[in-house]
């Protein structure tokens, strides 16, 4: 009886060992062979991409305008500067505009006009600057443009008092909804 049991267990051991070796010697799949479902593993992840409304505007360069000349018999010649200052803007939104204003008005007889080069597809016009914001560029769509020109024109009437070293003013441009 003991001998039968020993043979019984030895047989099981050999069968198990044979199956183990057979499994280890499974050949690799042939090129192009269809992989069994069990031979692939997957992981999934949820990724959300959110793009915020981005509106950026910057100006570089200061401008110094000096009205110095006139034509005899007519008024003073305006001083024009279209090279000293530029602006850049980025917007991924539509229906925007740029308004401009002065921090304070000039002395009587002195005025300042501004013309902005608008980004592609927009509309711009020269405007007299004052303390109240005024539209300079309208109908701005998706834009990422840099070094757009600002052209300032200073006018003075003959009755404007000479102001020595000049009057310093700050021009503010604001990018906003139409």
């Amino acid at each position, binding site marked *: 009886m003991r001998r039968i049991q020993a043979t019984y267990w030895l047989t099981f051991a050999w069968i198990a060992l044979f199956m183990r070796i057979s499994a*280890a010697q499974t050949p690799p799949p042939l090129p192009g062979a269809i992989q069994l479902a069990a031979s*692939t*593993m*997957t992981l999934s992840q949820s990724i959300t*991409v*959110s793009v915020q409304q981005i509106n950026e505007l910057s100006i570089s360069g200061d401008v110094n305008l000096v009205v110095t000349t006139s034509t005899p018999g007519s008024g003073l010649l305006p001083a024009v500067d279209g090279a000293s200052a530029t602006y850049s803007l980025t917007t991924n939104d539509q229906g925007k505009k740029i308004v401009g204003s002065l921090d304070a008005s000039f002395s009587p007889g002195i005025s300042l006009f501004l013309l902005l080069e608008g980004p592609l597809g927009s509309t711009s016009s020269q405007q007299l600057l004052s303390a109240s914001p005024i539209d300079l560029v309208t109908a701005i769509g998706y834009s990422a443009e840099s070094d757009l020109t600002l052209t300032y024109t200073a006018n003075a009437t003959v009755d404007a008092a000479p102001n020595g070293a000049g009057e310093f003013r700050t021009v503010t441009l604001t990018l906003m909804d139409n």
Partner: protein
Amino acid sequence: MNHLRYSTLLLILFVAFRQDALAQEFRFNAGGGPITLAVQSAIAGSEPTDATDSSTQLYWDANFGVPTKITVSTVSINQSFRLYVRLNVPSQGLGGQGIVQPEIELIHNMADTDLFTDIPSTLPGRQGFGTLIYRAAATVAEGNSNEHLDDVHIVTYTFLAQ
């Protein structure tokens, strides 16, 4: 007595098949949960700045018996913006061997695309980990989420014999 016999038999079978039971492994080693990439800034005059995320790490043990690879695909209905992924595998020494593929653009319903290939079938090279680097990008012409809603991707990584 029968209990002893069956226990012995189970023990033999366990030892015999122990190595087969230690199959391949593929899991998130860090992160793995939902991620939001927000494109939200720009320098005036330039396109919006890309948003990136590197909080997710993959771990693998390519116990397939053959060289293995990791592929990627995505489903993102009504996709408006761009999303890229690449796998950065820091340990290209003994562990984590394989070939890193260039950054992949994830496009809705894309075919499975190789992300990391030629993972060896033997130790130590078959085991490794890498960091997923996601990059979201949007030009101004692609608008914003207020107009198009957010893009939601279900990105799937598949680990399979090569």
